[in-house]
């Protein structure tokens, strides 16, 4: 028998798995309501309605959890689910009466119902120590620790607008832009294991990868290796993936940082990048309490001060950074002044002043 070759079938057709009411009213929805946190009701132009119940998951799912979710879907819903981009699971039902029993069941099985509207929804996260080859922190663990703290905010809609968060386990930041993003900042240049470089790393490639041209090829103990200009090095870690002997992760000196005000939607202003607000936070497993404390402080201040429909970025734009630092009680340092390309545009070139 010739070896089996792949069926290059690509992205599967979703209609085969989609809730029939969604397939039927595809492209013909009229409006939606949120009868309660975690529940959406979409009304089609045809007048038909579908209820969605959204619940949190840990994303990293074991077979038991998935099969349990399937059991719930079969018994309390209509056997159709979808996952959101934030790893929440959604159960669709065509009958309002099914909503409450489904919510109750999910809750009792430990799946928090929420994440809709102006709530803090699930944190977009990455692989961390569980699977990635370059992480300086964990992913699922950080998220579990933080979502425990934010459970109330997930299951209630008490925020001014939706809050999208992300965490990332290295500076590459697979988690992406967010209202609040948490990443790692290394503060020591890579320590080079010179014995390994020659075997594992293509040297020109690593040299080319450094964003500030801090790496040059060098002979160390007679062997081809690399050298880092520590004055230039910005500790970004970009050299580590292509050349693991350039150890950048450091249990002590790789610190967590918090960035706020990222927004990818076009609502109101154009999309904006998130900005640094706090750094130097210890990478403290298993519950990262220092991160959680700052995060909650920021969220509380936002919750108390922002107006309806203001995303975190809109709110800070209105109240200004001086007030942000005042209200959150976070220190403002010279590191908050950008110094990367185009940094000049981040300075205050105006007499717009906040008192």
């Amino acid at each position: 028998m010739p070896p089996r070759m792949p069926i290059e079938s690509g992205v599967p057709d979703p209609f085969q798995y989609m809730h029939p009411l969604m397939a039927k009213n595809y492209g013909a929805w009229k409006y939606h309501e949120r009868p309660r946190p975690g529940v959406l009701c979409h009304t089609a132009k045809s007048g038909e309605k579908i209820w969605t119940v959204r619940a949190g998951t840990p994303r990293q799912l074991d077979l038991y959890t998935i099969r349990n979710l399937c059991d719930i879907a079969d018994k309390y819903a209509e056997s159709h689910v979808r996952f959101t981009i934030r790893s929440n699971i959604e159960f669709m039902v065509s009958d309002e009466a099914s909503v409450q029993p489904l919510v109750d069941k999910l809750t009792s099985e430990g799946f928090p119902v929420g994440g809709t509207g102006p709530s803090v929804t699930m944190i977009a996260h990455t692989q961390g120590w569980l699977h990635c080859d370059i992480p300086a922190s964990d992913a699922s663990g950080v998220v579990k620790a933080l979502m425990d703290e934010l459970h109330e905010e997930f299951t209630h809609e008490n925020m001014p607008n939706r809050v999208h968060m992300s965490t990332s386990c290295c500076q590459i930041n697979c988690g992406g832009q967010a209202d609040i993003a948490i990443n790692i900042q290394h503060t020591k240049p890579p320590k080079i294991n010179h014995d390994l470089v020659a075997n594992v790393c293509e040297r020109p490639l690593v040299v080319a990868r450094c964003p500030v041209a801090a790496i040059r090829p060098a002979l160390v103990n007679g062997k081809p290796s690399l050298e880092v200009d520590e004055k230039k090095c910005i500790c970004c870690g970009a050299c580590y993936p292509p050349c693991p002997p350039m150890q950048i992760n450091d249990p002590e000196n790789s610190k967590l940082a918090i960035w706020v005000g990222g927004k990818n939607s076009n609502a109101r202003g154009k999309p904006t990048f998130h900005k640094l607000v706090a750094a130097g936070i210890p990478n403290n497993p298993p519950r990262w309490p220092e991160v959680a404390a700052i995060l909650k402080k920021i969220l509380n201040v936002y919750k108390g001060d922002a107006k309806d429909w203001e995303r975190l970025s809109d709110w800070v734009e209105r109240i200004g950074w001086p007030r942000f630092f005042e209200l959150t009680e976070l220190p403002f340092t010279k590191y908050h002044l950008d110094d990367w390309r185009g940094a000049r545009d981040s300075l205050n070139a105006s007499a717009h002043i906040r008192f």
Partner: protein
Amino acid sequence: MSKPMHDTPMLDQLESGPWPSFVTGLKRLANDEGKPYQDTMVDLLGQLELSYKTRKGYWKGGTLSVRGYGGGVIPRFSEVGDQYPESKEFHTLRIMPPAGMHYDTKILRELCDVWEKHGSGLIAFHGQSGDIMFQGAKSNKIQDAFDDLNDIGFDMGGAGPAVRTGMSCVGAARCEQSCVNEQKILRLLVNNFLDDMHRPALPYKFKFKVSGCPNDCMNSVQRSDMSVIGTWRDDMKVDQDEVKAYVAQKGRKYIVDNVITRCPTKALSLNDDDTLAVDNRNCVRCMHCINVMTKALSPGDDKGVTILMGGKRTLKIGDLFGTVIVPFMKLETEEDYEGLVEMAENVIDFFAENALEHERTGEMIDRIGLANFLEGIGLDVVPNMISEPRRSSYVNMVDWDEEAQKWNDRKAA
């Protein structure tokens, strides 16, 4: 009796608290008597606990793939395999989900069955690029696992310097804001480039993401090389009775302070009779007013997409948003869709030929300049591509007249 559990005092602390615990899940697998993955998961927990203690990761990469394909598997070999031998291989298969991530319980159970048989029992729904991540296969199980997944209709996603797995929002399936057929666009694009996905030979990764409207629930502007966003060209629809009802409910001041003043282009005005005046020529389709007054306002009828290029994360010139290269493209007829695919082909050809090694589209465009990129893919410059014209006088405009003529010719045409 299988391998005994390692002590995991730190991980254990992640079992308490109201959020569902992945540790509990991992332990369940490690305690799953008789299952092929049981010992693997015991050692995996051991290694993870070690990471928590030492604050260090212990995986390294390698090279693995399935027959016929060059990418899609993320190989992981443990650096502490001597201490945790059963999990010393813990590879991931990136498998593309149905567009929009719709499942029924039947297919979910089938996916579980495959991973029970050949894998670790640990599946992520989903990775940040949208893949179902089947994590924890040993090297000798990869092929079997893939074959079984492939048999039930699933295909490998992207990894390495390749077209990557894409994402599209729930959109038309359940969203009144949807301006386009998101799943069709996504499948058309990705499925057209399966060769570039499965046999990585591009300068670097290339991602497609599709959002049905400018709310951009897929984060496409920042997380894809080619971002396709639904929009409309005619006037938005206004149900003035619903407007009045909303004003009655919330009060005029609330409407002014939360809707009227938030319009980025001041295109809204509240009339004295509590109806809404929309200056559609100056509406930029930001979605805010429509989001707030979802019953009263909705997108127009003349729908299509805006296309942006070059979004990505930080390496190596800093974070980039995509920027507009096609302000509006109608997607109605099959020819329209073919036009979209053709454009993507031009883009990927140009990228393949002109990007440096490990250079994303956004970096390439930044390096060569948008004008050269557009010329390379055969698109004309138009003002919607900029937020403002040049403010630097440092430029040689020797060919001004010819360039101006091009515009005038196009206008006349």
